[in-house]
C-alpha cells in the first residue's frame, strides 16, 4: 500500500464483507497540531472479543483462499510508524469502529493519495450500502451522504455514467477541496 486512501478502501471492504448497510468514513485534519485521523464505522456483523483480540495479527483472516490477512495490520502499521495511534472496537451483531491517527509531518507518513477516487468507487460500486463521508479541516467541513443522493435520484442508479460524473465533481469540490493538496 502506498496511499492511505487505499487502506481506507481496504478496511471499508471488510465492512462490506461484514454485511454493513451503513458505513461512515471520517477524515479529520488539524494542521496546527500536525495530526490527522481516519475513522471508519459500520453496522455490520461485528466480531466477538476473541476474534477482535487477534485481528491485528497478519495470520488471522476470514478469507478462505489462504491464511494471511494483511488489511488491518497494514492500516495499524501505517499509523503507528508515524508515532500515531490505532484502535479497533467491535460488538457482535452491532458493528465495528476502527480509527488511525497520524502525525502529518512525520517522514514515514504515507500520502493520503486519491481519497476522492476511493470515495467515488465505494459510493458507485456498492448500490445497496449507504455511505456518509465527512472531511474536516481548518474549521471547514464537507459531507457526502449517499442516502440523501439516492433519495433525490429516486431509483436512478449511482453508477450511471452521468451520475458518476456528477459525483466525481461533487466529491472533489465538497470533500477533497477541504484539505486541498496538503495531505
Amino acid at each position: 500500500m502506498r496511499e492511505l486512501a487505499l487502506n481506507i478502501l481496504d478496511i471499508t471492504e471488510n465492512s462490506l464483507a461484514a454485511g454493513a448497510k451503513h458505513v461512515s468514513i471520517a477524515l479529520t485534519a488539524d494542521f496546527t497540531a500536525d495530526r490527522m485521523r481516519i475513522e471508519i464505522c459500520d453496522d455490520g456483523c461485528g466480531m466477538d472479543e476473541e476474534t477482535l483480540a487477534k485481528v491485528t495479527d497478519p495470520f488471522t483472516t476470514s478469507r478462505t483462499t489462504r491464511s494471511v490477512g494483511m488489511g488491518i495490520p497494514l492500516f495499524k502499521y501505517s499509523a503507528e510508524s508515524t508515532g500515531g495511534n490505532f484502535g479497533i472496537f467491535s460488538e457482535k451483531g452491532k458493528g465495528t469502529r476502527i480509527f488511525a491517527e497520524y502525525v502529518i509531518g512525520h517522514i514515514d507518513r504515507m500520502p493520503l493519495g486519491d481519497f476522492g477516487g476511493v470515495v467515488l468507487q465505494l459510493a458507485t460500486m456498492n448500490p445497496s450500502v449507504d455511505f456518509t463521508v465527512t472531511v474536516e479541516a481548518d474549521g471547514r467541513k464537507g459531507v457526502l451522504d449517499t442516502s440523501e443522493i439516492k433519495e433525490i435520484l429516486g431509483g436512478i442508479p449511482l453508477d450511471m455514467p452521468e451520475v458518476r460524473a456528477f459525483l466525481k465533481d461533487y466529491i472533489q469540490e465538497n470533500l477533497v477541496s477541504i484539505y486541498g493538496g496538503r495531505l
Partner: protein
Amino acid sequence: MKSLEELKALREKMRSQTDNRAVAGSDETVIKVGMATCGIAAGARPVLTALLDEAEKRQLHNVSISQTGCIGLCRLEPIVEVFKGGQKYTYVLMTPEKAKKVIAEHVVNGNPVTEYLIGNN
C-alpha cells in the same frame, strides 16, 4: 460549486433515458475486478477506474463492471475477469493501459487479448 440542486436537474434529464437502457439484457458483458488487500496493493483501483472511464467514454450500456473479493491468485493481481458469450476470461497482472485495450479489443470488438490471459503468464 456542485450542489444537490444540480442533481435534481440531472435526474429530470435522465428519467427519459433510463427506460431504453433497461432493455439491453441478454448480450450483457460482466467484468469483475478483484478488490481484496492483495488486489488493492497491486494496483486494482486504477485498473477499475480505467475500465469505468473507458466504458463511459465509449457509452457502453450493456457492460456491467463490478468488484469482487480475493480471487485466490494474489501474485497475479490485479486480476480482471470478463464474462462474455457464456465464457470466462481471466486477465492477470493488469494495468490501466491493458484494461483500456481489453475494453477496446475484447468487449467492443469481441477478440480476447490473449497475451494478457492467465494461460500465457
